[in-house]
């Protein structure tokens, strides 16, 4: 019972501390702002995607008079692909400001289209949005430090330290209780807006629970660190500086050094090499005898090798074959580029174990599907969709099927790739 009384007493004490109330209010307001803006941005991206789907559809109808055969149909039909923000993206926008989440593609060589970037204003991407992941991973520890660093020293300075320890009976549990109440209060102020927004956005409960669990573990880590360091018999300012130094090392210096080393040790093919090779292959095809291109094409697509070329000055079949051969030639480079990025990302995951702020931010981003993996997953979906479009058109090309605009209704949709 006395323990319960002590708890009540400490809660009251904490509630009466003006500076503690101030920090709690600050975190609550910041958390609300962060998820609020997150929600608005998710909404906007969804609206943009819906509007684009509609406009693209209208555009296709307007262009439909240009379609005279299967070849021109594939040439003039642009298809919209997109990566919708997840139900938890409001908490961590992650890579969505630097990686494209919408692409408009057609049946030409994919490698010449997939690296187009429609990512908006780079000034916005550079500073970065104020999202919940940033708040929780980088700002919250600083506030926690402010709440905990002078727990003992301030009482010492006020001359109450010995009195408190004497009356509390067990000094350790007394300080522990006081710290625990502050940590719990901060945790609540941080996650209540997150959860309320989550309920509004119909986020999966499991995602929310996992996020809270990770944040709780993270807050415990910093609390333990503050508790250990503030136990030093040193002046408060020294304790504060030490804690800030730890924050600076784990949030800035370690990640910066690690990023440099990872980029240095995992080399990627240069993007321009991919583009140049692609262009050379596609352009050379105009000068090469058509058989050379067709042979290279049939090597990968033996199922069409029975195709009889038509005697004409221009042949769509050959045109799309050399587009595909262009992709085939670039495939090793382009795969290496993708795998290299994934490898860098993989190492970064391990390295972030020693940089907890990066670890939490990355974890929340991966929960929100806004990390690098998610954006490469989207790239793969675009590739899969492009392949599905080829699978739709190729039988029509290589069996010389007569053009029938009604059949275009059966074109695969991007939605069908996602499911």
């Amino acid at each position, binding site marked *: 019972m006395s323990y319960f009384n002590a708890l009540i007493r400490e809660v009251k004490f904490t509630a009466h501390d003006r500076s503690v109330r101030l920090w709690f209010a600050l975190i609550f307001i910041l958390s609300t702002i962060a998820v609020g803006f997150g929600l608005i941005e998710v909404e906007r991206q969804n609206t943009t995607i819906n509007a684009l789907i509609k406009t693209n559809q209208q555009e296709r109808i307007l262009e439909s008079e240009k379609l005279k055969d299967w070849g021109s149909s594939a040439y003039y039909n642009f298809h919209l692909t997109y990566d919708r923000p997840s139900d938890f993206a409001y908490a961590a926008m992650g890579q969505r400001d630097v990686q494209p989440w919408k692409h408009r593609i057609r049946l030409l060589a994919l490698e010449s289209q997939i690296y187009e970037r429609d990512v908006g204003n780079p000034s916005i991407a550079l500073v970065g949005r104020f999202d919940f992941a940033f708040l929780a991973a980088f700002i919250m520890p600083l506030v926690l430090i402010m709440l905990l660093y002078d727990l003992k020293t301030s009482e010492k300075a006020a001359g109450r330290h010995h009195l408190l320890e004497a009356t509390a009976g067990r000094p350790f549990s007394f300080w522990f209780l006081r710290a625990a109440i502050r940590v719990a209060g901060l945790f609540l102020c941080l996650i209540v807006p997150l959860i309320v927004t989550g309920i509004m956005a119909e986020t999966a409960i499991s995602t929310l629970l996992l996020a809270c669990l990770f944040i709780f573990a993270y807050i415990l880590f910093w609390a333990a660190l503050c508790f250990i360091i503030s136990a030093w018999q040193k002046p408060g300012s020294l304790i*504060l500086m030490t804690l800030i130094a730890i924050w600076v090392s784990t949030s800035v210096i370690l990640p910066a050094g690690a990023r440099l080393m990872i980029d240095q040790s995992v080399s990627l093919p240069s993007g321009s090499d991919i583009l140049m090779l692609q262009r050379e292959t596609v352009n050379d095809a105009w000068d090469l005898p058509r058989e050379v291109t067709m042979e290279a094409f049939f090597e990968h697509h033996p199922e069409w090798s029975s195709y009889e070329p038509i005697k004409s000055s221009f042949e769509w079949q050959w045109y799309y074959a050399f587009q595909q051969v262009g992709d085939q030639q670039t495939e090793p480079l382009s795969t290496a580029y993708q795998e290299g990025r994934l490898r860098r990302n993989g190492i970064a995951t391990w*390295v972030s174990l020693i940089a907890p702020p990066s670890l939490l931010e990355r974890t929340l981003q991966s929960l929100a599907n806004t990390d690098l993996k998610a954006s490469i997953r989207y790239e793969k979906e675009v590739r899969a969709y492009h392949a599905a479009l080829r699978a739709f058109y190729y039988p029509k090309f290589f069996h010389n099927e007569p053009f029938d605009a009604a059949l275009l209704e059966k074109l695969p949709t991007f939605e069908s790739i996602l499911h």
Partner: protein
Amino acid sequence: MTTLSSIKLIKKIWLIAANEWQYWLRSHLSLGATGIFLVLILTTSFLTTAHMDSENHLRSHQQSEAEETFLSQPDRHPHRMVHYGHYLFRTPAPLAIFDPGLDPVTGQAIFLEGHHQNSVMFAESTASADLGGLSWLNPALVYQLFAPLVLLLVGHSSVVREREAAGLLPLLALGISPHTLVFGKALALLLFSLLLLIPLLISSTMAFMSGESSMTLLLLFLNYAIYIAIWVVLTLLVSIAFTKRSTVLAAMTGLWFSFSLVLPSIAVSITADTVPVAGKIETDLAMLSSLRKLGDGHNANDPAFQQLRADVLKKYNVERIEDLPVNFRGIVAMEGEQKLTKVLNEFANLRMAAELSQTEHLADYGWLTPMLAITVISRTLAGTDLAHYHRFQREAEAVRLAFVQGLNRAHIETLSYEDDINRNKNEDAWQRARVDAANWQVLDAFQFNTASLTERINSASPSIRILLAWLIALLGLLLWSCKRVMP
């Protein structure tokens, strides 16, 4: 005031400043914090310089390779070269070794071809290991973020220490006025700031050697000095306002992370929400209906070119296209490209103007935190801001139009109409419908350069005014609060 007493006053101020320095020299904390800062800024400067240097070489190399490839193409139909296209690479500005600015988040390469304006591809951040926004450390960020931190660690105690140790009374009793005391402390901190700024001179020297003007470097230095001076005054203000050293430190730390981390990104969120900008696909789709009216430049029979046909026939006083001394298909291609480019540029300009106004809107939040003001000034003076990214896109567009129209001119003047329309008849006809590779010389060597200093100062000046206003307002506040320096 007589000369003698003012000399005495200056002496007193110097004495207080010297005392403060002696105190710092005895304090492990001050020495440690300064040491760590200097190591950090020097390491970052070195690494950023090395990185930007290698990027510079790589992209310049890629640029000359792209030019060689284009120029070494064999004899061809000129329109083939229009589609063959060309690449441009954005080389970093000399001062990117200090402030890379938008470089990591903007594309480095652009493919130029007829009839399209492509986006700039391959940003460094797309491929780099992602360890959070703060992992993109560079010398400018070290100054913007950590110079204030070191300053507050070293300087927070300046006034409050005297108060806590009950040293104020004797000082004031000695006839040192509160103003003199605060000026002395301020002088000490300002001299300390100059020490922190020395590594900036090293980066500046390197940039100077790669062609940056000394005027830019001086301006950059002055602005960083103002930014740090703002933090000096803030530190003194807070040190005067509170009676406990730990309260001062806590308040300063709170101010530091609010100003440098919280407010800038909140400003970004507000801006992105209140001044949204349409993306490229949205703009492209909006543009298509304007483009449809133009006609297809590949098709000389497109009704959109009827008027052109009549005009050309009249000009050369002939009845039929075949009788023209020039290639009408080339004329159509040139006219089509010209009209198309007009529309493309119209929409591209709209998009860039929208992005620019969004960025200017963001810069207005410099009134909220001096951090935003200095980042804008720094990027603008360094030539790594949005305006320079747009400049690259505009220059790329000029290069695109120039070589495409150059090729179209060759199409008009050196390829006969008859060979042209018969090109698909047989292999021989295909071979005949070509022009000499000497015509590929329409391509000029490209080197991306920063805008003139006047232009850069113009776009930085709103933020410079904001930064100055911060300093003046805080100085006023400091003068006013000197009377609070009472024991």
